[in-house]
């Protein structure tokens, strides 16, 4: 059981939760995740954490409502308990110790790059962060990310704030303008990660993506999270979640992520009908 200490609504579909979890906070490192189960009948889902605080003994997660479980999570309030909250899981992001790193975040990932930015920034690495959303009112934590970045670029699909276009288009423009990056990291929807892989490939810019396949246990026991990297079978929950974007078989990953599309739709509609 883990108690929610603080809840903050970031957008109509995104909330931030500060969760009491001293053990996880103590060993947490940037880029890792927790497995969450909300109640006895619930599914186990992975959530990349957005922040952690060893002193306070807390872990922060940002949840965007997409299916039944994230909807149930979002309906929790301060003081409520999360039934299972397990972590920190996966390997930490393999961050550089010097140079210039560009971080890209879309959707909930715009918040999740915060720990990467802070770690790099405090270690003296130059950080450029590119965060995106469909429109201005859906941008999340851009101030917080900006505070631990040397350069912050905001993008919106509709042009209501910052650069008018995708985060990948913004990156291409920056590279073409002569900005030099040693590595790119991204957390976000799989389609965005694939687009980033294709954006950086021609430039030979090393790119790491945080893969987010369907998981069951999150501890390496079931193989549900398997992906193909460089023609080899890997389990994202223990071997990842970060992998070399130019070696990931995204076509397969995208197909596999839709394995239960029908069932997810059914769950969600039953949940909505039930209130």
């Amino acid at each position, binding site marked *: 059981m883990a108690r929610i200490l603080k809840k903050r609504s970031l957008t109509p579909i995104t909330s931030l939760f500060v969760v009491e979890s001293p*053990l*996880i906070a103590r*060993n947490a490192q940037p880029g890792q995740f927790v497995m969450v*189960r909300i109640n006895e*009948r*619930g*599914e*186990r889902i992975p959530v990349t954490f957005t922040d952690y605080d060893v002193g306070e003994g807390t872990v922060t997660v940002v949840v965007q409502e997409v299916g*039944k*479980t994230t909807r149930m999570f979002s309906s929790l309030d301060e003081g409520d308990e999360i*039934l*299972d*909250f*397990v*972590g*920190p*899981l996966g390997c930490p992001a393999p961050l550089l110790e010097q140079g210039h790193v560009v971080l890209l975040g879309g959707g909930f990932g715009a918040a999740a790059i915060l720990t990467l930015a802070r770690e790099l920034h405090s270690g003296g690495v130059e950080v450029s962060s590119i965060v995106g959303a469909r429109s201005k009112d859906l941008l999340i934590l851009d101030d917080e990310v900006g505070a631990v970045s040397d350069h912050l670029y905001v993008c919106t699909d509709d042009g209501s704030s910052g650069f008018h276009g995708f985060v990948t288009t913004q990156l291409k423009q920056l590279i073409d303008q002569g900005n030099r990056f040693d590595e790119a990291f991204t957390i976000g929807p799989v389609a965005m990660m694939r687009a980033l892989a294709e954006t950086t490939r021609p430039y030979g810019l090393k790119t790491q993506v945080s893969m987010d396949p369907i998981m*069951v*246990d999150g*501890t*390496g*026991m*079931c*193989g*549900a999270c*398997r*992906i*193909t990297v460089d023609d080899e*079978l890997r*389990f994202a929950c*223990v071997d990842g979640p970060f992998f070399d974007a130019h070696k990931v078989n995204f076509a*397969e990953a995208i*197909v*596999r992520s*839709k*394995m*239960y599309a029908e*069932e*997810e739709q*059914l*769950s969600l509609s*039953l949940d909505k009908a039930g209130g």
Partner: protein
Amino acid sequence: MGVPIRDFIKLIAEGKPLEAVRRIKEVNSLPAVCGRVCPQEHQCELHCVVNGKREPVSIGALERFAADYELAHDSVALISGNTAPISNGATPSRNGSKPSHDLRDSKADGQKVAVVGTGPASLTVAGDLARLGYQVTLFEALHASGGVLMYGIPEFRLPKTIVAAEIDKLKLQGVELRNNIVIGKTITIDQLMNEMGYGAVFVGSGAGSPKFMGIPGENFKGVYSANEFLTRVNLMRANRFPEYDTPMKMGGRMAVIGAGDTAMDVVRTAIRVGAREASVVYRRSDKEMTARIEDYRDAEEEGAVFEWQTNPVRILGNEDGFVYAMECVRMELGEPDESGRRRPTPIPDSLFIMELDMVVMALGTNANPTVGQSTPGLTTNVAGHIVVDPETGATTRRGVFAGGEVTTGSATVILAAGAGKRAAAAIDEYLRIESRSTTVSAVQ
């Protein structure tokens, strides 16, 4: 296994099932479990003294009877542990609601031991050490306890109330249970020993990492590992979707690859959750299969079709990425290989197609890598198994012991429980020597 079978049967025949159980528990702490899942026909019944003359004695059934009798009738056993001396066969007195101190050692009192995992190896270690007076904490990565007994072996073969009863017994003995903690991640072994005051650690984290064949098409939707399939059903109740949230594709034609206990559990579970057709595909013959005969017969009776001497070569998927068929080749058996079983080789021109909606790989498992990777000084072998002294379970790291499948790869409940038994004794000995030497150095 060194189980005192002759004494055991004699005690049952004399109408003393409680004593019989105690006798068994001196060497096997989990008789109610073993009576249901151990392959007695390969183990004790094969060596049964009446074998050849008559049908061997059904030792498994007797073990199960005696152990169930104890669970139903003997509340004292739950509390006082199980090797408490009993006087002249009478039911032990019921006033002993506190742990029996006869076997406790005051030196052990208060010393803390951490046990990683809650499979049969870990449950055995916890029970034995708690009985000796150690303060034991079980750390389990999942939300449910019992290891494979919980998430792998299905309810119809091993009722979860039996597993829960074993765990309740440990709680009554004062064992602390902490779920949702992944040792090596949430807490490292260094932290357990250096910061949290655990004098010794037992690692029983199992061989949880499923193997795949490496054939084309294995990542199509509808291909599962046995662990994933069984976990979805047993642990997450996917068979009751959408009442429970975890989904599963069910109801079509399925095949399981392999012919061990796991494969039988998969095929029988698939039939129960509504598979239209269920097959077992195995590259050798029924003579080489490792499943218990009883489960094989049950599977056959329940409608499973057996494709012996058949090996998949690729899995085919439709444009949406779902499995629709599997191409297989027939095999012939040659000379025995390193495992002593006849080596299968493909028969030329024997390729054929099986139409399927689901394929489950039950090919065995590799060691779970988390503890090995996160613990400096702990040596693992090329297969990833933790290297131990088989007599004691001692690892290359002082104060850290291991046993069960994390040291051997896929094996059996009784072997894991046996390893736990030996490790518990070795941990006790280690901690006695440790506490003596620390006292000495404190005096000096």
